[in-house]
């Protein structure tokens, strides 16, 4: 019980979160890269966890696959054909969550989403900072991680490129989060994908906390966050 509470309490602390999150990805990506070499698969510890909302949502992305065997009774997967059965060789857009099992069972061959292909990797290598990762996929790193775990011939390269991109962009993100004002934020984070946005938000929060401490307002008790947003919503409803 106590351990649970301690965990909860610690999770309230934004600095811990930042350190965990930023070290996490660096370390984990590097470890996973090494692990693939040595063990051939991803260590079990890798998160996002089973319950993570983002992970579920991002795996809904469609990838184009080609069925190597015919699958009876599942013609509905292919919207263009009217068959009851799926013919061998038919090209279908499948959601990503289906892909790992089917790929392992050699039922399908699929095409890597185009943002992880060679030419895009070369773009990232040339200059990662100016790339609009939000357009490339709001969950670029996470999806890339899943893709790379599928034992493709490109896996190692994809992993290397992901790690390198994050390392290059991280400096820029940290700089922006510590030195931007409220108004510029929307423009600055337009180019970042979701993981980077989380890092940015944590950086901003720590900066604001520091400023509050300097102004000696850190001991000021505030209205609870949920209560404040609850009130705002009620007020908006009443006025609208």
């Amino acid at each position, binding site marked *: 019980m106590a351990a649970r509470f301690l965990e909860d309490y610690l999770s*309230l602390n934004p600095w811990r979160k930042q350190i965990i999150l930023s070290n996490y990805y660096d370390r984990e990506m590097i470890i996973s890269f090494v692990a693939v070499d040595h063990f051939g698969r991803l260590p079990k510890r890798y998160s996002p966890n089973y319950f993570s909302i983002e992970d579920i949502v991002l795996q809904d992305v469609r990838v184009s696959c080609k069925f190597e065997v*015919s699958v*009876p009774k599942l013609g509905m997967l292919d919207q263009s054909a009217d068959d009851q059965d799926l013919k061998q060789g038919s090209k279908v857009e499948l959601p990503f969550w289906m892909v790992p099992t089917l790929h392992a*069972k050699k039922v399908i061959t699929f095409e890597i989403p185009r943002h992880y292909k060679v030419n895009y990797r070369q773009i990232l290598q040339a200059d990662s900072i100016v790339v609009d990762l939000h357009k490339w996929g709001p969950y670029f790193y996470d999806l890339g991680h899943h893709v790379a775990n599928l034992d493709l011939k490109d896996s190692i390269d994809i992993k290397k490129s992901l790690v390198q991109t994050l390392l290059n962009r991280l400096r820029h993100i940290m700089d922006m989060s510590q030195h931007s004002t409220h108004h510029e934020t929307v423009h600055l984070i337009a180019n970042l994908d979701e993981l980077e946005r989380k890092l940015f938000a944590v950086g901003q929060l720590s900066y604001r906390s520091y400023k509050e401490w300097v102004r*000696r*307002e*850190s001991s*000021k*008790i505030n*209205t609870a966050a949920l209560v404040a947003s609850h009130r705002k919503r009620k007020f908006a409803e009443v006025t609208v």
Partner: protein
Amino acid sequence: MFAQKGVELIQELERAKDFLPPFNEDGVRQVLEEMRALFEENQRDASSAVAGESEYITSVHIRHCALERNKRCLMAYLYNRLERIKEHRWHFGSVLPADIKANICEPEAQFFIKYNKSLAAYMKSIGEGSYSLDLTQNLKPPKNLYIQVKCITEFGEFETEDGDIVVLKKNSLHLLPRVQCELLIAQGILEHVS
């Protein structure tokens, strides 16, 4: 496509980042329906595969994948809602406002009551003797015994633990002991001015 409804449930939670949307009983039921349909088809195909027709095995695998996906969506939906309800206890106190209560379903309400009980039991156990340590207070280290507060919503009479009555009129300033007003500040009735 399979598991669409499940993803919709999750997206509902994602959109409402800081409040609890009403419990989507319909959605949950639909996902369970889908799961049941998939399971039955799989039963049929699996039995026929066992019987010898091996071509159905791939379909079984695909449907199993979809089943797992649906299960994951449902579990995540329930789990995240429970996490938010736990957070509500720390922000709103042990009594939730009526419009939030309307959004939680019966089992979740039971969970909330039990969570409150566990929290109270824990707080009592780490206090000394009959004194229970209130963990929801003093989340920031306190600097002084008495704090200045301004009343931002009309509240009326408030009785402190010593029996003193304070009339909380809108826009009146008070100097009160910290322990008495922390709950009111968290609820947005008073505002801490330095």
